[in-house]
């Protein structure tokens, strides 16, 4: 591991100012991803500014009925929060489907959004990788890419974004609060992540020194009927092969009023499934509709030999999740009328 300096910031402005002076420095959240990458020699910051103890560790209601989640809230606290569990169940489920209890106790909301890909070449400093060393090449395309992207990838990079939490948040239309050297700004999560294009090293729209301070969730009442389903190689402590976050709003006659869907494990970013949402709006909540929506979303997929299985996997998982949700919603309404 390279030598580095460690500072603990007293307040957010000081943290931002500290980092602005160090071009290779970086913020430290729970460290569950960053420290691993430092040990592997993938990340070599000269300065770590520890922001994990800044006072952004609260989960508070917003005036519009939404929820403000501090960027330093630990994943385990967020998953256990009563409001999150009842009003945004898919978010709690996504968090609990991720990593392990010990990791969730340390991992922060901000760090989770900014965790790096698990592409094996990215994690191995002895291998070429366009994301790690721009221009060095992408061995994954012809090599081992079982867990990599079928949507939104580019010639230069086919990595997947590994976060479960971010998939649920992007489906919920979350926005991110950022404090940078030039002040504060708010960025919708759907515009926060960048597709790789020919600059896979730039994963978000953040600039150096930008600090995440909070994530805001809009009220979205129908998110009470939401689910997160994750397919993985083993029952716990594994990243998603494919995941689905979905919320459904149904009319009494079974017509879909509205839907929010995002996919994980299939793209370089948490993938908001807008095409599928469009197909669903106004259509009857049937398996055939769900299947058409899934096919529409995945029509643009460009699978490779080692990850082509993700196509049927994503389709089947999306259909299954929507069917389960329909049953949940119907059960609740029937229960109410009885």
């Amino acid at each position, binding site marked *: 591991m390279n030598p580095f300096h460690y500072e603990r910031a007293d307040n957010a402005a000081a943290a931002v100012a500290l980092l602005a002076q160090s071009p290779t420095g970086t913020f430290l959240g729970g460290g569950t991803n960053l420290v691993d990458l430092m040990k592997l020699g993938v990340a070599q910051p000269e300065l770590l500014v520890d922001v994990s103890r800044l006072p952004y560790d609260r989960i508070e209601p917003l005036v519009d009925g939404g929820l403000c989640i501090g960027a330093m809230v630990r994943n385990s606290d967020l998953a256990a929060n009563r409001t999150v569990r009842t009003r945004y169940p898919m978010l709690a489920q996504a968090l609990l489907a991720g990593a392990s209890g010990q990791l969730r106790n340390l991992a922060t909301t901000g760090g989770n959004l900014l965790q790096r890909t*698990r592409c*094996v*070449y990215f*994690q*191995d400093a*002895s*291998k070429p990788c366009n994301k790690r060393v721009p221009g060095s090449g992408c061995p994954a395309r012809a*090599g*081992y890419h*079982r867990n990599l992207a079928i949507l939104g990838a580019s010639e230069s990079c086919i990595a997947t974004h590994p976060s479960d939490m971010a998939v649920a948040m992007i489906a919920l239309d979350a926005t991110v609060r950022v404090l940078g050297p030039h002040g504060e700004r708010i960025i919708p999560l759907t515009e926060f992540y960048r597709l790789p294009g020919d600059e896979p090293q730039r994963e978000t729209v953040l600039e150096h020194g930008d600090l995440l301070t909070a994530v805001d969730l809009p009220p979205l009442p129908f998110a009470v009927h939401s689910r997160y389903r994750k*397919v993985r*190689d*083993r*029952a*716990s*402590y*594994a990243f998603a*092969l494919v995941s689905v976050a979905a919320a459904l709003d149904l009319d009494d006659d079974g017509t879909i009023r509205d839907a929010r869907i995002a996919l994980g494990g299939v793209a370089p970013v948490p993938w908001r499934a807008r095409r599928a949402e469009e197909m669903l709006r106004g259509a009857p909540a049937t398996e055939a509709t769900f299947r058409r929506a899934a096919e529409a979303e995945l029509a643009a997929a460009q699978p490779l030999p080692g990850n082509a*299985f993700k196509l*049927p*996997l994503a389709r*089947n*998982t999306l*259909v*299954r999740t929507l069917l389960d949700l329909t049953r949940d919603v119907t059960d609740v309404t029937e229960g109410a009328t009885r």
Partner: protein
Amino acid sequence: MADLIGASLPRPDALGKVTGAARYPADLIQAEMLHLHVVFAQRVHARIVSLDTSAALRYPGVVAVLTAVDVPYNAYGLIEDDQPVLCHEEVRFEGDKVALVVAETPDAAAEGARLVAVEYEDLAAITDPKAALAPDAPLAHSRLKSNVLLHVPIRKGDTAAAFAEAGVVIEDEFSTSWQEHAFLQPEAGIAYVDEQDRVVIETAGQWLHEDRRQIASILQLPEEHVIVRYAAIGGAFGGREDLSLQHLLALAAWKLRRPVALAWNREESMIAHHKRHPVTIRCKWGATRDGKITAVEATVIADGGAYASTSVEVTKVATLFASGCYEVPNISVDGYAVYTNNIPCGAFRGFGAPQAQFAAEIMVTRLAQALGMDPIEFRKRNIYREGSLEPTQQPLPDGVSALPVLERCIEEASKHINVTRAETQTMPHLRRGIGIACGIKNVGYSFGYPEQATATVELNGKAELERAVVRLGAADVGQGTHLAMRQIAAEALGLALEQVSLIAESSAEAPNAGSASASRMTLMGGRAVYDAAIEARARWSANEDYYAEATVQYRPPQTTALDAATGAGLPNYCYGYAAQAIEVEVDTRTGQVQVLKVVSAHDVGRAINRQQVEGQIEGCLAQALGYALLENFQVRDGHVLTPHLSTYLLPTVLDMPPEIVPVILELADPNGPYGARGVAEMALVPFAAAVACAIHDATGVWLKQLPMTPERVLVAIHQAATPSSAAQSSKEQQ
């Protein structure tokens, strides 16, 4: 004291292991020791053009950098000395070692290692074992003429004639993958030179005296000048059979005459020690209409990787078991162990048997189905019985219990699993299925390899016998052998357990018991302890010294090498027999397989400690489940891509079947102490095939590749739904 044998006595080491009090090799490292860091080649196959240590030597804290020129005899191996301690001219796999940096601190050693400048010239690499067999293939070792490390033929009867007459013939190809031992405690240890000028290595391993032999040979010292001691051992599974860092510690301590320490992290452990062999098996099976298996042909190709390790023996075992545990009159099997520039492969729980029987048990089930017979009934008709001839044309060693084990398995399974039909489906996409498979695996060394265990028993007392000290150089790798040995001695001597102590940790203080491997220690070490106890007891009775001692070497019935042309011979002196019934649930939308129930039946001859036998079965099943479904070790062009436990996934407790039923039969082995034979590897042998059979029962598709990951299950289901591709996937002629 007659209740000692079979009692589920608690392990004396268990408490210390769960509280952290137990001292593993890394816990022995002390402040004033020098630290080692290995410079790995990170090249798949290359010539060393130059090696410059000057920058490393200048780094503050670096004391020395050892290279090939510092090694007295720079070649070692369990069977063949083909592995350099530190590479001289050529590196042959990524984890080859080129230099050893010695420094005052671990950080300085690591930094020094980065500063060792090695210039390489890449050589053509061979990483595909089938391609390695081609006459013009690049050579994994430039100095050799061929990549073939071993070709072993087994010939019995006339397969061509048998196939011509067979009622059904099935042909197919299977492939298995690498498996990592993933013991909890990565390799570590210390070494120093003692006051008598002996080099002492304190570490973990599986065979004190073999480690000593190899280290003495490397250092060109008499064996008595080398002492190997084992601290608490955090698992082994075959992965500590080869030297990994023990000899590096010895070399550095001997050269510098100062205490040295080395502890590998997980990644170093993963790239540096050998793995289970990936094997491809192309095979053809034939049976008569009335359900007799008449012929088996197979080609078994094992990727041995860059160095010999135990590949030759593993491949012979896989070749011997290509026809499973069935008496087949006509056999023609060719086994090949091949050198490549991949990570070396060697011993791993099961030692070639799981690979071979993954193919064999699936083929047996398919033959039965092709004949319209019940696969259990079909197995019973063909399974080994007392006196059955092995593929090597000699009768099996006495105590053949394959049939009673299968029968007991089915009997127990019928209480836990509806063996004839899976339970009703909960959801249309969740399908349940049942699989049955049998297994056979040798206990102890095979094919004429010298087999012995030696124990000393010392007795003390006054008028009555009061205390016994047992000396036996047996490694307790976590299987609990040390307690079992005391139980055997106490029973034989009529003492309480507390009156018997065991000295087992040092090559200087305990005689050679052979390795803790091949499921052999209870039988071999236990028998030596038993014989020595009986002999010492007789001497005690015959004198008035209040002291008696006896050292006894036990040698089991002699095995023989296989005939070079036909494979004829006496391969083994004892076998373990297993049978499993398994229920799975397959999610046909995701391809995920959940194992719901396992009934695992084993003839252990005699359970010396019942709880430990059950522990071995359950623990082995976890490793078997990982092997069958999950553990996906990726090597591309010789590079290991999954050196982390976050990318190489082991099963968690949630992946384990909610219900495991260990079934223990006690049909005495003629040689084992109190009839005991081994069990440690057995649950791994039939498991993958049983899961494949259960997946087939649930979905109608056959998986032929390990691990059976979701995508493989999905692809198979998809192909079966597309008729054109299903037809080409296997040939079945009737």
